[in-house]
């Protein structure tokens, strides 16, 4: 049972990463292969401040949010100057550079990382796994809510307009540059926030946990579930995050699975499992429409032509 809780916390953290990544890759359509780097920045700052300066866990959350957000802002500013594939490469490089910074800059503890991160406590009680899960779910709910809200705002619609046609978006009044930067900042900040939970949960952070491969895994989860949708992000994290844990034998093939999923999805169903227009979504919609039709008719006669 406790093991399931641990797995759940991992899944929830992945979900925060996918939902936040979706803001920039799904809504705005910009490539970002460095989500794990922002995650790591948040985790590392949380780790350093809670071990070295005895900062309370609750304060490390906004700290991680802010530091990762600043990094996201920088990337956002850089992104304005680059075209798509160069940006993709730059984010790949960013991963490596940030991991190198973790490894070699003394502030971050060097190759061995930061360990003995204290457990958070609330009202005098130290965190158990349940507490981590609860806080994680709250964070996830927060990120999902913000993301959902964005979908209903002009800001969110503008992001998608930027994705569809940046030039046209500009001509209808969308401030493309600043909105892109805001999206990058937000996406990175949420990832950093997840890091602040991850650090005490593992009680140690090492540089290599936040590398390029981890970023690819997050992206693979998002693409698998359904790029551009919150439900896709969560589902992808849920299935691909839990699978290697639930089926232990898979864990040796974990990376192979991710690589294969990435290329198979992009080749055959790039909208993802539950993305807009996916086979599953279409089937579900057709099924629910059929049900609705039948309920209206009150009989199981086939609907009249032209309905």
């Amino acid at each position, binding site marked *: 049972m406790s093991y399931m809780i641990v797995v759940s916390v991992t899944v929830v953290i992945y979900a925060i990463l996918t939902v936040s990544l979706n803001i920039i890759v799904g809504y705005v359509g910009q490539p970002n292969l460095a989500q794990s780097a922002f995650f790591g920045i948040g985790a590392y700052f949380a780790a350093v401040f809670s071990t070295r300066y005895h900062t309370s866990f609750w304060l490390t959350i906004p700290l991680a949010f802010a530091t990762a957000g600043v990094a996201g802002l920088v990337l956002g500013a850089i992104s304005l100057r680059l075209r798509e594939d160069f940006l993709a490469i730059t984010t790949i490089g960013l991963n490596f550079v940030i991991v*190198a910074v973790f490894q070699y800059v003394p502030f971050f503890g060097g190759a061995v990382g930061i360990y003995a991160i204290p457990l958070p406590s609330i009202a005098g009680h130290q965190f158990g796994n349940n507490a981590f899960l609860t806080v994680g779910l709250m964070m996830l709910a927060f990120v999902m809510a913000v993301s959902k809200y964005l979908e209903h705002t002009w800001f969110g619609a503008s992001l998608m307009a930027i994705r569809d046609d940046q030039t046209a978006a500009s001509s209808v009044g969308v401030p493309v540059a600043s909105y892109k930067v805001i999206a990058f900042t937000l996406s990175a900040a949420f990832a950093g926030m997840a890091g602040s939970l991850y650090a005490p949960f593992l009680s140690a952070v090492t540089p290599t946990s936040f590398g390029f491969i981890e970023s690819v895994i997050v992206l693979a989860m998002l693409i698998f579930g359904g790029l551009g949708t919150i439900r896709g992000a969560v589902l992808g994290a849920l299935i691909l995050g839990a699978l290697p844990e639930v089926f232990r034998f898979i864990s040796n093939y974990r990376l192979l699975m991710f*690589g294969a999923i990435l290329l198979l999805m992009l080749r055959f169903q790039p909208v993802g499992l539950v993305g807009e227009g996916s086979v599953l979504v279409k089937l579900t919609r057709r099924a629910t429409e059929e049900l609705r039709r039948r309920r209206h008719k009150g009989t199981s006669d086939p609907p009249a032509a032209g309905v």
Partner: protein
Amino acid sequence: MVVSSLINGIVLGSLYALIALGPSLLYGILRILDIANVAGLTLGAYTGLKVFNATHSLLAALVVAMLASAAFGYLLQRFLYRPILGRGPLIPLIASIGMFIAMEEVFRLVFGPYPLDFPAPVPLPTVHVGGAVVTGVQLLILIVGVAVLVGTWYALRRTRLGLLWRATSQDRETASAMGVNTGLVIATIFLIGYALAAISGVLLGVNYNTVYPTMGDIPAYKMLAIIVLGGLGNPLGTILAAMLIGLVETFVVSYVGFVLPRDAIAFIVLIVILLVRPQGLLPGESSGS
């Protein structure tokens, strides 16, 4: 000391040039950053090693490695890349990343995670130049490097295929409209690009006397930095950029105490250059994206 660093730098640069040339050609033809090409490198290295162990012939190893990798490249473009071409530059890029990662795992599962030795004796003498030593392997790299470079220049400038490549890389649609059988050109370039990767793989394996599943990681991301620096789709620029990076890395490591590891240098150079000149160091394709 300087001569030694210079030679090492040139050898390293030649190696990088071999690694990056294939993807540069591939980008020219398809506008895709094909990271999976480096999986062809590793495939070439493993194949070469196995063939060498069986035949003790480095030449046979090279040939079979090239064939194996070329076949892989052919299948890749036929079944993965060509069908997804219309979807913009990002989708094939990410698909190639997926393929790259998957292949590394396949190598690990098939050949084991531990490094294997590649002790192939190179039938070339050790040369002394200006107080520095050039080993047989390094000599081989230089010779192969020069041969490939000259061959590529000749092929691009003087052969029909080269003309077709240049036409298609400038404007695929027009080339196709003019009756250039782009399918055939693409397949051929992939065969060549992956054969090149196999050569790099064998040379890399022999040079460092080791073959392991993730040996493609560092070459992969350096390759990215190099082809962007050199101007995407500009093979000459790629070669120059490769030499530059090889020399910079060697000299920086020898002479400057450096905080960050040598492997981060390529990317830092890239990011700095991209900030200053977002289109890359040298002009790449003629028109914008």
